[in-house]
């Protein structure tokens, strides 16, 4: 698979690895294409695709930089962004740590159980002592290793004077181990090593499920300011141009923005005419025409000829940075949300601890002696510290997120599912959310040959209109014709040769309303009109949300005319021309009224609103920042996953509550046994396994109900 590459000269080759996130890897063909084509480039040693993470790791010589590699990837048809030194690495390491702990705990549990069953079936005397000692030798290192996540978190909580689920778990496990050691040393009849290790194993399974869910859906989420230009060409007093990095730009500088370049700061156009793509900032797909005196913002991409821009705001003062700051602040309210498992444990932990303490005091008063009182108190702790509680939430949420992924919705974590279940009002952005956000042409006038020529030509370009045309043609099942000598002039269009005839796609010769382009094959011309269509099932989705008791409305930054049209089509109220501040203010208002708003949006201008909403969903075409701010991302052209997400989230919470009721109910039955000193290690082991199995089984029902829904 790796083609050896001869380097251009005999210099010692210096290699390094660069990672790129490539969201558009979808099939085996993409893997093969990247891994075969990239090494053909001089200086690339090999490329390895990670399909799950949508990443490509490229081993290349230091003579190539990120820009060259991004360009090479684009040439073979993949949009890519370099990943800065893996921000998810810590998360990854945590997941691995937990998986290792699960393996160790599983190993310990099986071997100790083997020995315990012999003891339960009647081994006594020297054999029982031997088996207890063997169990101790296995259990102590296993508990020390596998228990670390719980001990660390419990210590942390205690240090800040709080308590969480890990505190009773750690106390239970440590006391059970200490007591068992004492029993073993004094040739006692019962040792609880298997209960302690089994408890850790089941709880770690719950943690591992939770961690898997988080990492699975985080693929392809990049950083915010990556799109903002990193440097600019600044005019020097002598008239020459010099590259200056974004941090060193000053207001008042005059910069030259070439076609295709992203602006690094806000400014006013002084010279030149053209169009900029503001999709990043406003979510608006139609390019904005600019001329002398027009304001342009950082993050906008210059589509046509060069522009001379006088800078007015740089760095942290740009509109883009302002939005990033708003998002940051808005997102903080969400970190205050307390997850259901923590809410349950806040109630549960004090009860368990007081019960154990009461059992100890009660038996001491009854004159049972400190040894027997302690044994009973620890039995209460073990039996009330159910692994079922640790599994109740993650088991249900993992099954639900699996069902949602099959339906095209990636939920980022469990807390997102919990918040999605609570929403009672939905706000939709228009462009890119209710509509596709990508221009689609009317291709009904084209015949079959023209269609295949058009596809052959259009798929060579990354221009939004060409892509829209190519997507529409591919959807119709058109096969591309082979077009040679394709050339693209920025702002002019594409030209090429097909079977000896000149073919082109470009700007229409006569002025058109809205977006249009002209297709020429030989001496025949067609005008293609583009518009941004409303997603096919937008209406059903809004109806479906209404049947769930969620009222929808449109909140858009677009001009009122086009918003009104969509709003009246869908029969929902709308607010147009909203700035990011106004969107945020509206959401804060709704929250102050006691509502729990769901925000669905895609543009960076929706970012603060997405971060502030009780729950939020973004389409996968959304800007990186919005995907990062949202709780969930839906894939594809259908809006249905939005309504489906709420349905499944509510079902999940119902199952979670059932699981809790069951786990706690089970313990209430077992507590009297423990209080009266009748819980043997055998009973504790059976209670734990059965309750865990029931909870997992109950959660698996979600996978089936997800299928029945539609």
């Amino acid at each position, binding site marked *: *698979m790796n*083609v050896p590459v001869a380097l251009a000269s005999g210099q010692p080759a210096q290699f390094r690895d660069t990672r790129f996130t490539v969201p558009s890897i979808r*099939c*085996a*063909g993409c*893997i*093969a294409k990247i891994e*075969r084509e990239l090494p053909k480039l001089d200086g690339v040693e090999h490329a390895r*695709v*990670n*399909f*799950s*993470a949508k990443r490509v790791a490229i081993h290349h010589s230091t003579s190539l930089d990120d820009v060259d590699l991004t360009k090479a990837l684009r040439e073979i048809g993949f949009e890519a962004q370099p990943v800065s030194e893996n921000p998810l690495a810590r998360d990854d390491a945590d997941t*691995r740590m937990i*998986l*290792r702990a699960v*393996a*160790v705990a599983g*190993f310990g549990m*099986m*071997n100790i159980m*083997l020995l315990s069953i012999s003891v339960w079936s009647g081994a006594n005397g020297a*054999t029982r002592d031997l088996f207890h000692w*063997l169990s101790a030798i*296995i259990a102590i290192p296993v508990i020390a290793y596998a228990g670390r996540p719980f001990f660390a978190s419990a210590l942390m909580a205690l240090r800040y004077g709080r308590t969480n689920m890990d505190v009773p778990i750690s106390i239970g496990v440590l006391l059970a181990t200490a007591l068992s050691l004492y029993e073993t040393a004094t040739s006692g009849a019962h040792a609880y090593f298997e209960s302690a290790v089994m408890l850790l194993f089941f709880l770690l399974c719950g943690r591992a499920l939770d961690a898997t869910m988080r990492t699975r859906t985080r693929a392809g989420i990049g950083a915010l300011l990556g799109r903002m230009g990193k440097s600019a060409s600044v005019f020097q007093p002598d008239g020459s141009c010099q590259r200056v990095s974004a941090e060193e730009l000053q207001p008042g500088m005059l910069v030259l923005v070439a076609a295709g370049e992203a602006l690094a700061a806000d400014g006013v156009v002084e010279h030149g005419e053209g169009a900029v793509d503001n999709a990043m900032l406003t979510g608006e797909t139609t390019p904005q025409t600019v001329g002398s005196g027009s304001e342009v913002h950082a993050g906008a991409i210059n589509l046509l000829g060069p522009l001379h821009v006088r800078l007015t705001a740089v760095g942290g003062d740009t509109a883009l940075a302002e939005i990033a700051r708003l998002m940051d602040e808005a997102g903080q309210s969400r970190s205050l949300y307390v997850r259901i498992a923590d809410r349950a444990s806040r109630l549960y932990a004090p009860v368990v601890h007081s019960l154990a303490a009461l059992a100890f005091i009660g038996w001491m008063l009854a004159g049972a002696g400190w040894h027997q009182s302690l044994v009973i108190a620890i039995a209460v702790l073990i039996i009330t510290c159910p692994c079922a509680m640790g599994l109740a939430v993650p088991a249900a949420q993992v099954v639900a997120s699996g069902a949602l992924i099959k339906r095209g919705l990636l939920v980022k974590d469990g807390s997102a599912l919990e918040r999605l279940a609570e929403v009672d009002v939905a706000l939709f952005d228009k462009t890119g959310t209710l509509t596709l956000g990508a221009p689609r042409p009317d291709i009904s006038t084209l015949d079959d040959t023209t269609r295949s020529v058009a596809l052959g030509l259009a798929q060579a370009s990354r221009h939004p209109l060409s892509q829209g045309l190519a997507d529409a043609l591919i959807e119709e099942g058109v096969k591309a014709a082979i077009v040679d000598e394709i050339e693209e002039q920025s702002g002019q269009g594409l030209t090429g040769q097909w079977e000896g005839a000149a073919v082109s796609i470009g700007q229409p010769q006569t002025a058109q309303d809205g977006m249009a382009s002209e297709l020429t094959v030989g001496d025949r011309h067609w005008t293609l009109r583009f518009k941004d269509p409303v997603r096919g099932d937008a209406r059903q989705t809004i109806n479906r949300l209404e049947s769930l008791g969620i009222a929808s409305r449109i909140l858009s930054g677009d001009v009122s005319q086009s918003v009104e049209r969509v709003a009246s089509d869908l029969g929902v109220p709308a607010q147009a021309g909203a700035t990011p501040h106004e969107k945020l203010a509206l959401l804060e208002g709704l929250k102050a009224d006691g509502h729990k708003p769901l925000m669905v949006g895609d543009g960076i201008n929706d970012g603060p609103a997405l971060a502030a909403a009780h729950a939020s969903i973004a389409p996968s075409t959304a800007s990186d920042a919005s995907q990062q701010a949202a709780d969930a991302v839906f894939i594809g052209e259908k809006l249905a996953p939005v309504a489906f997400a709420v349905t499944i989230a509510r079902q999940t919470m119902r199952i979670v509550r059932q699981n809790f009721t069951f786990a706690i109910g089970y313990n209430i039955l077992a507590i009297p046994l423990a209080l009266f000193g009748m819980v043997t290690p055998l009973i504790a082991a059976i209670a734990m396994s059965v309750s865990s199995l029931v909870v997992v089984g109950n959660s698996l029902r979600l996978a089936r109900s997800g299928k029945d829904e539609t």
Partner: protein
Amino acid sequence: MTGLAFLIPIALGMGLFGLAAFFWAMRSGQFDDMDGAAHRILIDEEDE
């Protein structure tokens, strides 16, 4: 009872072997790209 002297070390040894195999698999990246492995089998190896 002498059977135990063989059987218990064997049981533990097999368990440890499984554990070591799992650790090795994690370290060598066998679980890094589960979906990719499913897709890679579909790639035709071309002669180059």
